[in-house]
C-alpha cells in the first residue's frame, strides 16, 4: 500500500535538483537586471512604470488564493455531503462555473452584476442599492474566487476521496464527529495528495489574474498595455512584462516543490 520511505531518496540528489531549478529563476532575474542596466531606456522606465502593477497582481493572487482555499474546501465538503440538496446545489455551481470562460465570468461581475443590483434597488426602492458601484479590485477578487473555488473543490474532493474509506470508519468508530475525523485524520493525509495540484492551481491563478486587466484593474498586464499605448513601443513592454510573470511563476513553482519535498520527508 504505502511505500514512501523517508530515508530512501538521498537528500543530496534532491538538493542538487532544487539548486538547478533555482538557477533558472536567477537567470531570469539576471536577465531583467542586465536589460535594465544595459538599456535603461526603455527597460528601466518600463520597470518603474509597471512595478505597482506587479504589486496589484501579487495582492490579487494572494487574497483570491486564500479565499479559494477556504471556499474550495467548503464546496468540496458540501459535495461530499450526505444531504442531497446541499450536494445538488454545489454540484450545479461547480458545473456552471466550469462551463463558462474565466474572462466571461470576470466581465459578468464587473459589467453585468452592478446594474442588476441597481435595478433591484429601483424595484425595491432602496437608495443604497440604486447607488451601488462596483469596485474593480473587489469585483476581480470576487470573480476569481468564485471561479477558482469551483476548480479547487475538485482538487480537494479528489484528495479526500483518495483516502481509504477505512480511515473515516476507524475515526468514527472511536467516537470522533465527522468534522473531527476530517480535521485530524482525513485532511492531514489528503494534504499530501493535493499539494501538487493545489500548487498548480496557484500558478494558474497567478497567470489568470492577467485577465482582470480588462475589467479596470491596474495589474501588471494593464500597466504594460498602458506603457505601450503612451510610448508607442510595442516590443519591450511585453518582454519586460513576460519576464516579470516568469519570475513570479518560477519562484512559485520552486516554493511548491519545496513544500512538497518537506511534507514527504516529515512523513
Amino acid at each position, binding site marked *: 500500500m504505502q511505500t514512501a520511505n523517508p530515508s530512501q531518496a538521498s537528500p543530496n540528489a534532491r538538493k542538487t535538483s532544487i539548486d538547478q531549478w533555482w538557477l533558472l529563476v536567477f537567470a531570469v532575474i539576471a536577465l531583467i537586471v542586465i536589460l535594465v542596466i544595459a538599456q535603461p531606456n526603455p527597460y528601466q522606465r518600463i520597470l518603474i512604470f509597471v512595478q505597482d502593477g506587479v504589486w496589484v497582481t501579487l495582492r490579487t493572487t494572494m487574497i483570491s488564493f486564500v479565499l479559494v482555499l477556504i471556499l474550495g474546501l467548503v464546496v468540496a465538503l458540501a459535495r461530499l455531503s450526505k444531504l442531497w440538496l446541499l450536494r445538488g446545489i454545489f454540484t450545479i455551481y461547480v458545473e456552471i462555473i466550469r462551463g463558462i470562460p474565466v474572462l466571461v465570468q470576470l466581465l459578468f461581475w464587473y459589467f453585468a452584476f452592478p446594474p442588476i443590483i441597481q435595478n433591484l434597488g429601483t424595484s425595491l426602492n432602496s437608495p443604497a442599492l440604486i447607488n451601488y458601484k462596483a469596485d474593480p479590485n473587489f469585483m476581480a477578487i470576487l470573480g476569481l474566487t468564485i471561479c477558482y473555488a469551483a476548480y479547487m473543490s475538485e482538487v480537494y474532493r479528489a484528495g479526500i476521496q483518495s483516502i481509504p474509506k*477505512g480511515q473515516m470508519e*476507524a*475515526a468514527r*468508530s*472511536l467516537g*470522533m*464527529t465527522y468534522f473531527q475525523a476530517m480535521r*485530524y485524520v482525513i485532511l*492531514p493525509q489528503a494534504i499530501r495528495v493535493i499539494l501538487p495540484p493545489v500548487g498548480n492551481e496557484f500558478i494558474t491563478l497567478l497567470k489568470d489574474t492577467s485577465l482582470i486587466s480588462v475589467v479596470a484593474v491596474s495589474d501588471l498586464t494593464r500597466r504594460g498595455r498602458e506603457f505601450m499605448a503612451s510610448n508607442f513601443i510595442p516590443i519591450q513592454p511585453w518582454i519586460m512584462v513576460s519576464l516579470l510573470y516568469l519570475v513570479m511563476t518560477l519562484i512559485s513553482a520552486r516554493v511548491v516543490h519545496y513544500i512538497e519535498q518537506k511534507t514527504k520527508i516529515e512523513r
Partner: protein
Amino acid sequence: MTSEPIIHIENVHKRFGNVHALRGVNLDVYKGEVIVIIGPSGSGKSTLLRCINRLEEFDEGRIVVDGIPLDTAANINAVRTEVGMVFQQFNLFPHLTVLENILLAQRIVRKRSKEEATRIALDLLHKVGIPDKAHNYPIQLSGGQQQRVAIARALAMNPKIMLFDEPTSALDPEMIQEVLDVMLALAREGMTMVVVSHEMGFARAAAHRAILMDDGQIVEEAPPDVLFSNPKQERTKAFLSKVLH
C-alpha cells in the same frame, strides 16, 4: 447472564440497493459474553457488526446498545464511545505514530489530558506486547503488531463492548496467534465481545456462543463445541464441511 442484554438486536433489515444483506436479524448479547459469528462470504456478518455501531444504517428494526437506542445522532456518538471496533485492515492512521494513534481520540473525544492519555496509551501498548514501538509509524510495524495497536487504540476509549471484524484474516499465518492471544486475554478479563472470525481454536477457547449466519440471517446458534461438532442445520453442516475440510 441475567437482566438486560447489553446489545439488543431486533428484527434488523438492511438493503444495499436490491441486495438484501440482513433479513430480520434478532440477537441479544449479555454483558461479559463473547460471541463468535461465522458464515460464508456475503452472508452479512460485517454488515451486522457495522450496524451495531451504526457505521451502516439499517432500514428496519431496532438496535439498543447498553440501554441507548441507535436513533439520533447524539445517541450514535454516545454508542460509538461505548463500542470499540477492530477491522480486518487495521485502519491505523498512517500519518500518526503508534502513540499518537492511541492518543488522538482520547484527547479530542474523551478530553483527557495529555499526561493521562499518554499513561493509558503506554499501559495498553505494554498490555498488547509492543511497549517499544510507541514512536514508530504504523508502516514500520508488522501486520500483527499493527492489529495489536488497533486493539490498544480501541481499548483506550474504555469501551464496554468490542467488535472484531475478521481481525486476523489479513495477517500472515505466523502473526495470527499473537493477535488471538491478546483477544483471548481480553475475553478472560470479561470484555463483551462480538467477533467475526473463522478461527475455530479461538472460538472454542473464548466464545460462549457461536453463531452461523447465512444469506442475511442467523441460521443457528449454540456453544462453539456444539455448533462445530454437532450442528443441527443443513446449512451449518454444509458451511462447516467447507471450512474444516
